[in-house]
């Protein structure tokens, strides 16, 4: 698709190369890459969940082993970092979603923060519900 005619008169166009480290060129680009990397934290969280399920399947000893492993300092550090990334994911996701799905009421577009707000409410409620199921003494 790129057009590069070459007549005797056509001057040499200068094309600046794009550096492999382009995403360090501005803090906005860096933030974008961080946002994209939250997906790794998401995948890691799924792995943790799978490990938990496997331990539940295998029996109480495996579960004890699992809880023990989660207390290892490197594991804790990793999870805290991953958790921060998850928060970044949640915030960016909620804030960007209204752009992709504009909501109109009475022909007028609803401001983005108003569309985002219910998402946060949902998030808090869902989190509380999950925590309650997990923590409740049966």
């Amino acid at each position: 698709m790129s057009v590069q005619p070459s007549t005797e008169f056509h001057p040499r166009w200068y094309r600046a190369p794009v550096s492999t480290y382009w995403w360090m060129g501005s803090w906005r680009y860096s933030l974008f890459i961080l946002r994209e990397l939250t997906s790794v934290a998401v995948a890691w969280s799924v792995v943790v969940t799978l490990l938990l399920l496997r331990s539940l399947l295998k029996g109480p000893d495996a579960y004890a082993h699992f809880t023990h492993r989660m207390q290892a300092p490197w594991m804790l550090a990793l999870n805290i970092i991953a958790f921060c990334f998850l928060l970044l994911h949640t915030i960016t996701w909620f804030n960007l979603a209204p752009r992709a799905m504009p909501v109109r009421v009475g022909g007028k577009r609803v401001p983005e923060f108003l569309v985002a707000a219910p998402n946060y409410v949902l998030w808090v409620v869902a989190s509380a519900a999950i925590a309650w199921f997990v923590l409740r003494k049966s």
Partner: protein
Amino acid sequence: MSKPSNEGFFWLLFSAGGVVAAVFIPVLLFLFGVAFPLGWLPQPSYEHLLTLARSPLARIFLFVVCSLPLFHWAHRFRFTLYDGLQVKHLNEAIFVLCYGGALVGTLLSGYLLLKI
């Protein structure tokens, strides 16, 4: 540039996964990865979790929470590799790696949840 590609399908999975990951995953990792290990909250007992995980609703929930976010990861990670590393020639390998990974994870979660 004429026929619509299947990107739409992967993008839907990515988006659905993004929503699930945004709403449900932070609390899970917070509880099991941070709060319990640090002793901020009492670690639930094995029996309690097992009964909880065995309820049909929880199985469906857990399946969704494991599978869709993996596809979310696959999509995003694929593009991050393309853009961040500029490794165009590896496109196909990356594609297989990412979605293959997500598929394996999904099957694994299905297996675990059926057996549990």
